[in-house]
Structures are given as C-alpha cells and as structure tokens.
C-alpha cells in the first residue's frame, strides 16, 4: 500500500545476503524519511535477525538501484528495484 508519505520498493538479495535474510526478493513500504540506499540499509537491518546479520559488515555489501551500481548516498524513489549482494566474483 502506498500513501504519500511512504515509498514502495522491490528488494533483491543475492549470494550470502540471500542466505542470511532467508529471502530472495521482498516488497517493502518504507517511510519517506528513508530516501537513500544508506538509510534503506538501516531500515532493512531492523526487519529480522537475519537481515541484521546480512548487513552487519557493510563494507562487504554492494548495491544496485534499478540494475546500476549504487552507493550509500544514492537516492531511492518509489518503484525502484534495489539489489544487495557481495562484491562480485565472476569470470
């Protein structure tokens, strides 16, 4: 449900972040005050002990907003897809 003072976001987790949060994907409604990736991480950390464990060491967490690499200062808007994952290890 979206009211003027909330944002609805699609959150994705990959690799060990998914294993710790125990969800691959979730839709969340965050207060309007949660306006950046960094604030979103603070908010998500409170959702469950698993989320807290996933975000415990933020230096090892990377993020993408709408499939583009982002950082804690990146702004978020309603409808965004925000993905959290470890540093990439392909190739």
């Amino acid at each position, binding site marked *: 449900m979206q009211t003027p003072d909330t944002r609805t976001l699609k959150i994705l987790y*990959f690799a060990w972040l998914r294993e710790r949060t125990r969800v691959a994907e979730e839709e969340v409604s965050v207060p309007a005050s949660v306006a950046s990736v960094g604030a979103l991480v603070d908010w998500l950390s409170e959702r469950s002990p698993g989320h807290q464990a996933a975000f415990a060491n933020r230096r090892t967490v990377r993020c993408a907003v709408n499939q583009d690499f982002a950082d804690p200062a990146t702004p978020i808007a309603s409808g965004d897809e925000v993905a959290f994952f*470890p540093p990439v290890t392909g*190739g």
Partner: protein
Amino acid sequence: MATIRVQEADFDVGAEFAALTAGRSDVGGIGCFVGTVRDHAGGRRITAMTLEHYPAMTSPALARIAAEAERRWALLGCTVIHRVGRLLPGENIVLVLAAAPHRQAALDATGFLIDFLKTRAPFWKKETFAETGEEAWVEAREGDDAAAARW
C-alpha cells in the same frame, strides 16, 4: 555488435571463433580468454563450483563493458559468454573473444574485457569442498580491482 550470452550450457570455442569472423576478411587478430573451474582453492580440493547471477542486471552490465571495449580499441567484433549454475572442475566458465585489425588491440581488449567482467558484472561463485562437502562463497580479491584499474 557484441555477442553477449549468459547460459547454463557449455560453449564451443571453435564455433564462436567461426561465428565472430563469418563473412569477413578485415580481421587481423582475435584475442581469446577461456576461464575454467580449478579443482582446488586455498589448498583444498573442490568438487563443484556454483555460479549465481542477477539476471536483470547481468546482460546490460556485460553489454556496457563490451561496448566500452569496442569503442576504446575500435574492435571489429567481440563475444562474451558466461555460464551459470553448477559446474565441475575442468569445465568452462567464461569465454571472451575480441577481434581487431591488429594484435595489440585484440590482446588488450581481451584483457580489459575479462578484468572488467570480474569486477563489474553481477556473478557470484560458491565452491563445494571435497573433504567435508561444505560450501563457501568465493571472496572478491583485491588483485582483481587492481587488474581492472590498470585500464
């Protein structure tokens, strides 16, 4: 125009070479890199490597990296194929081909493509160890960032 594929199936290096050069004779050299699954990591034997990715982001990320290589080295074509899913030691993981009029551009673009792919494309590897059956996510290496920064 780059060929970009993310797939579970193996790839045929010879067939990809042929596809890259089909119908043209302006290519002077093709750089090639094939990444394969090692059977050991940190002194321990591994029995499998499982690759996960972020489907909505992977192909656009690879296409951006390929477009950058094509622009910087004026490539005549390039191919990037990355496998996902459960792979066994000795199996192919990734193929990079870069075709150019001259060898230096082909070789440099190939190095750039694999170095950037390793640090900018959303893939994650998990290793399964032989002795215990335990699984562990591979950690990113600082050396990979340094390799990408060279370019």
